């Protein structure tokens, strides 16, 4: 492929470069002109992450032919921030207002917004939505972006001064901007595909195009020989250690490369490694492999039918595993209940749809390999890779790249084994980035669910018995399926008092993409069923739905369905009570609207609750935090909790700084590189603020004690970081702390501390009784929606979300989590369903755009928890759980229809309206 030389002006500088035929402007900018601030999410014009200005107009660089840049003026976010005061002010508002989370969409947002503001200094909300409608964000829920774009609608004003320095010390409770925000607004944060230098070898995976197929690979030696630029092919035969990987002991069943049989569309069977220029033109169809399609079972009914093909010999009937919780006598309680509501609820695969496809870079180092990749679990990655490579863990180093959104799917291995194997086989640095469709085909999904539920109630409005039977489609491999099967029965009661309860969940293998972890581990699916039936019971009893819930909620001292009793920290009642004023107001407004509106429009208001246990279910999940003070008085925090956009880098630092007693901006923070930072566990199960946060608090307190002991200072002494060094001030005066360089350890620390925390839990017995979690977080949402009964569309008008977070470490980041979770819950309720082979891109798989997310009001409830740091609880998954049920209940209020399948697409709602 030869290129014709073109010249262009990139961010004010004249540059010349060859442009290859068919090459994208985005690729040329990133690979030859150092503009890695241009991000790639889809290469198809669907996500807008690649937006740049061409002669001032915003365009998708991925859809602009490179040679079209000839003679043009190209501006990227980095250039805009250097020279355009509008962009600089916009950046300040983005940071201050928390408009960037993971940051992968942020350059595209900033570039598009700058173009708008240049033409229109005072855009309306609709004009902003129009300008940013083509830029997708999966983290923020867009509301903070809308606020940040408008110069006058900037809500951060009362929080922070303009220079974005934290106003105070940035301690617990302060809504400081995220500490790592600038890398995101400038596009300088290095995500998975930003680490590799240009021109390294690249990898492409050969994937199965069938749901189930046998296959045989031809002569790969000859293929390498005759295909110019290809240097190696990898197959199962090249895996020196464990052939299969997975996340749960006993369930490591997913092959790195399929052997003989591929069990889902998109499964890897081989990898091709070659020179970058050749890989750009590589045609996977040229790879020698022959497929023999076989009968496939793609849903749980088919997979459990007699005679169905068995995916894994050890699992007869395709039953992967079961979870079970039982207390009292559910059947008896249902039999004596005055009324019983029941339903059969179903949902499909849901795709995480983070804007950053999996990507990374690996190079041979010493006797082993170093892998840079986006991940939620660096230490788990190292363990798995060591097993696959048959190397000691010390020979595998994981350097986490920036993570452009994870939501659970980046807990599992994706690119890592291929990178490591290829680097070791070729002895050279290699890189790979999944295409959007590869990412969607091959990485984990939310489990499709098939739930049968009955709940009874007495006339006085108390619940009487609940029986839950859930079947979860785990796809071809286990991934986190066992966790889903265990978690669901523990949570399916919702945060309610139910003495007679039986819940069973089964995970079933099918020929589908592996279902794994996705914000909530099956609990959101169960909550849809449970909260819908509560509304139906309330309606039949003619009790206000919110008061009905309040009458039955868990409180301190009340036993959960697992027999656990919390004598403190149960905040669901407080959440629901906080919603009462909005509930009454919105219900009256909707009733007035419906009484007067003409035409097809009907409004409805719905409420739903949720709870979620923070940390692993009855299993150890320790976090360790290490810190040190150098002889120069520098305070270093080794922070290993993967920040996937949620804000661990900021929150953990705030907790540590508070415990130590220094301003947060004086910390030097090192990331999760497994060579230097101890294990803070995985970023999942809403555990980082709670578990790693507690470790950070303990480490901060320990370091403080050592520091004060140096000068025998009183416990309440103040630590002053002065240009002359660290000084301690107490009642007896000011003391300088001597930090002798000669006393420094190998890492240069004179003082260090390292603390581990593991939340106290107890195993569950055969009836699921025990203490599965040390703490739960609680939430309740109100959804206000409008239905166009002519078209079957549902338009959310407003959401009000009450969240018991125990203690708000950083209220700004909490709002960000809540808004982002709600956007995902809204997608799950109304538009998202992954269908293999049919929705493998971001224009057939719909996620909410900036036009779909309504205003969101967040009410922070602080019902302190005895275990959490400063009382804090986890939040990440809680944000999503009540959203879909609240929307469904609002649709019910508007139309009288109880819908049993999500997503409620216009076509499904229209069909239900017609049937009525």
């Amino acid at each position, binding site marked *: 492929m030869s290129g014709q030389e073109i010249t262009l002006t990139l961010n004010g500088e004249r540059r010349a470069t060859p442009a290859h035929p068919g090459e994208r402007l985005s690729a040329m900018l990133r690979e030859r002109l150092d503009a890695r601030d241009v991000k790639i999410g889809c290469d198809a014009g669907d996500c807008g992450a690649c937006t740049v200005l061409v002669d001032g107009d915003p365009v998708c660089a991925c859809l602009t032919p490179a040679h079209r840049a000839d003679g043009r003026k190209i501006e990227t976010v980095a250039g805009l921030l250097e020279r355009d005061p509008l962009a600089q002010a916009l950046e300040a508002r983005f940071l201050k207002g928390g408009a960037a989370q993971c940051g992968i969409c942020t350059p595209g947002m900033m570039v598009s917004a700058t173009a708008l503001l240049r033409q229109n200094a005072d855009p309306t909300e609709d004009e902003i939505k129009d300008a940013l*409608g083509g830029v997708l964000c999966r983290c923020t829920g867009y509301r903070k972006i809308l606020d940040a774009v408008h110069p006058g609608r900037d809500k951060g004003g009362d929080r922070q001064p303009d220079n974005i320095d934290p106003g105070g010390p940035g301690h617990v409770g302060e809504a400081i901007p995220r500490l790592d925000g600038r890398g995101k607004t400038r596009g300088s944060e290095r995500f998975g595909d930003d680490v590799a230098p240009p021109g390294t070898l690249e990898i492409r995976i050969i994937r199965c195009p069938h749901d189930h197929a046998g296959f045989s690979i031809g002569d790969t030696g000859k293929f390498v020989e005759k295909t110019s630029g290809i240097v190696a092919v990898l197959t199962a035969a090249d895996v020196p250690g464990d052939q299969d990987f997975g996340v749960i002991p006993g369930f490591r069943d997913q092959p790195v490369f399929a052997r003989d049989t591929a069990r889902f569309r998109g499964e890897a069977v081989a990898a091709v490694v070659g020179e970058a220029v050749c890989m750009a033109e590589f045609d996977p169809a040229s790879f020698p492999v022959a497929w023999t399609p076989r009968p496939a079972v793609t849903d749980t009914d088919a997979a459990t039918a007699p005679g169905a093909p068995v995916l894994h010999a050890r699992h007869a009937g395709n039953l992967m595993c079961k979870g079970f919780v039982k207390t009292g006598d559910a059947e008896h309680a249902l039999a004596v209940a005055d009324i019983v509501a029941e339903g059969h609820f179903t949902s499909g695969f849901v795709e995480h749809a983070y804007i950053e496809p999996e990507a990374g870079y690996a190079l041979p180092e010493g006797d082993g390999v170093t892998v840079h990749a986006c991940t939620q679990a660096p230490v788990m990655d190292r363990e798995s890779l060591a097993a696959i490579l048959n190397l000691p863990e010390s020979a595998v180093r994981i350097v986490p790249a920036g993570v452009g959104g994870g939501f659970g799917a980046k807990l599992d291995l994706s690119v890592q084994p291929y990178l490591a194997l290829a680097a070791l086989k070729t002895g050279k640095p290699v890189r790979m980035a999944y295409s959007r469709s590869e990412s969607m085909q091959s990485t984990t999904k939310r489990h499709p669910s098939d739930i049968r539920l009955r709940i009874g109630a007495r006339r006085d409005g108390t619940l009487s018995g609940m029986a839950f039977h859930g079947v979860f489609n785990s796809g071809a491999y286990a991934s986190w399926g066992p966790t889903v099967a265990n978690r669901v029965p523990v949570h399916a009661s919702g945060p309610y008092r139910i003495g007679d309860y039986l819940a069973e969940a089964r995970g079933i293998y099918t020929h589908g993409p592996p279902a794994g972890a996705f914000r909530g581990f099956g609990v959101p699916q169960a909550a849809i069923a449970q909260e819908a039936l509560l509304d139906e019971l309330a309606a039949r009893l003619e009790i206000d739905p919110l008061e009905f819930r309040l009458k039955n909620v868990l409180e301190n001292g009340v036993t959960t369905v697992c027999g656990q009793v919390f004598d403190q920290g149960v905040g669901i009642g407080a959440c629901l009570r906080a919603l009462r004023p909005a509930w009454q107001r919105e219900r009256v407004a909707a009733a007035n609207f419906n009484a007067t509106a003409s035409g097809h429009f009907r409004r409805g208001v719905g409420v739903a609750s949720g709870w979620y246990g923070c940390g692993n279910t009855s299993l150890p999940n320790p976090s360790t935090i290490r810190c040190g003070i150098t002889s120069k008085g520098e305070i270093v925090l080794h922070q290993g909790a993967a920040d996937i956009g949620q804000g661990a880098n900021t929150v953990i630092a705030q907790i540590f700084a508070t415990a130590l007693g220094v301003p947060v901006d004086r910390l030097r923070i090192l990331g999760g590189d497994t060579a230097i930072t101890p294990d803070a566990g995985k970023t999942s199960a809403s555990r980082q603020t709670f578990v790693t946060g507690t470790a950070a608090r303990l480490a901060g307190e320990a370091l403080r004690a050592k520091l004060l002991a140096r000068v025998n200072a009183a416990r309440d002494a103040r630590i002053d970081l002065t240009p002359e060094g660290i000084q301690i001030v107490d009642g007896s005066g000011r003391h300088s702390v001597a930090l002798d360089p000669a006393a420094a350890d190998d890492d240069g620390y004179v003082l260090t501390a390292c603390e581990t925390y593991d939340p106290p839990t107890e195993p569950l017995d055969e009836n699921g009784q025990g203490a599965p979690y040390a703490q739960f977080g609680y939430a309740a949402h109100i959804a206000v929606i409008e239905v166009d009964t002519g078209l079957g569309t549902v338009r959310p008008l407003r959401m009000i979300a009450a969240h018991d977070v125990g203690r708000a470490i950083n209220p700004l980041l909490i709002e960000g989590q809540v808004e982002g979770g709600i956007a995902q819950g809204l997608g799950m309720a109304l538009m998202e369903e992954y269908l293999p082979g049919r929705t493998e891109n971001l224009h057939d798989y719909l996620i909410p755009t900036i036009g779909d997310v309504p205003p969101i009001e967040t009410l922070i409830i602080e019902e302190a928890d005895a275990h959490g740091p400063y009382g804090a609880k986890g939040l990440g998954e809680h944000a999503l759980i009540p959203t879909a049920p609240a929307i469904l209940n609002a649709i019910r209020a508007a139309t009288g229809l109880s819908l049993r399948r999500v997503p409620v697409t216009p076509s499904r709602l*229209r069909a239900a309206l017609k049937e009525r």
Partner: protein
Amino acid sequence: MRYHRPTSIGDAVAIAQDASGTCRFLAGGTDVLVQLRADLVTPDDLIDIKHLPGMRDISRAGDGWRIGAAVTGAEMSENADLKREWPGVVEAMDLVGSTQIQGRATLTGNLCNASPAADSVPAMVAADATVTIAGPGGERTVPVAEIPVSPGRTSLQKGEVITAVNLPARAARSADAYLRFIPRTEMDIAVVGCGINLTLDGDTITHARASLGAVAPTVLLVDAIADALIGSTLGDAALDAAAAAASAACNPIDDKRGTIEFRTRVAGVLTKRAAKIAYERARGQS
């Protein structure tokens, strides 16, 4: 892959005619690049025509318009005269992709995609637009509706390329409108699209063209809708008849975006809503 930058349409046609493998013309570029990455099409020859004379011009042709093949949606939106005379065509094109794509997407590209759901096509058909095609045998002009023959396939012959879209003269008291239905608010592909073009005498509709997209393998020109509207002042009876005619004309597929029944019904609802808009616009024209 070879990249060509011919200096005339004649040369472009000659290159295309001689090409042995797959050949693509590049005007805007959006669809070609999507196909490249999706491994749907790997052209052997890419012929860039955007820079050729007239390709980027919106010009008067008699009382009508000639819109060059490389004119983008964004450029159409910026032309106030065009927008006033053909608001339906301009708004349909405006719905093709986001702001970031509007700078690249073209009417011609949207048409040559031959997607049944292409937004601009029903609007062009309702407008009675034609395209000018350059080819080995010289130039010819054909109605827009004759270009797509099935999903993904056009009637263009080897070596042929569309050089312009032509819109007819705008009569007095006439206007058009385009509406589509998509499941989310932005950036989506039409589940149903409807273009309506009306001419009035006083308040009575004397001439109508109506077109539906995404409800059949190719765009539909539905005379029955027009017949239901002509002679009326858009009362409820005419609207109901038009909606019924729209639903009756549908031959959609069942897919993840909408069932057959849903598309059929929505076609009726949109026909009514689009007719109302076109009617109000026509009444506002002198």
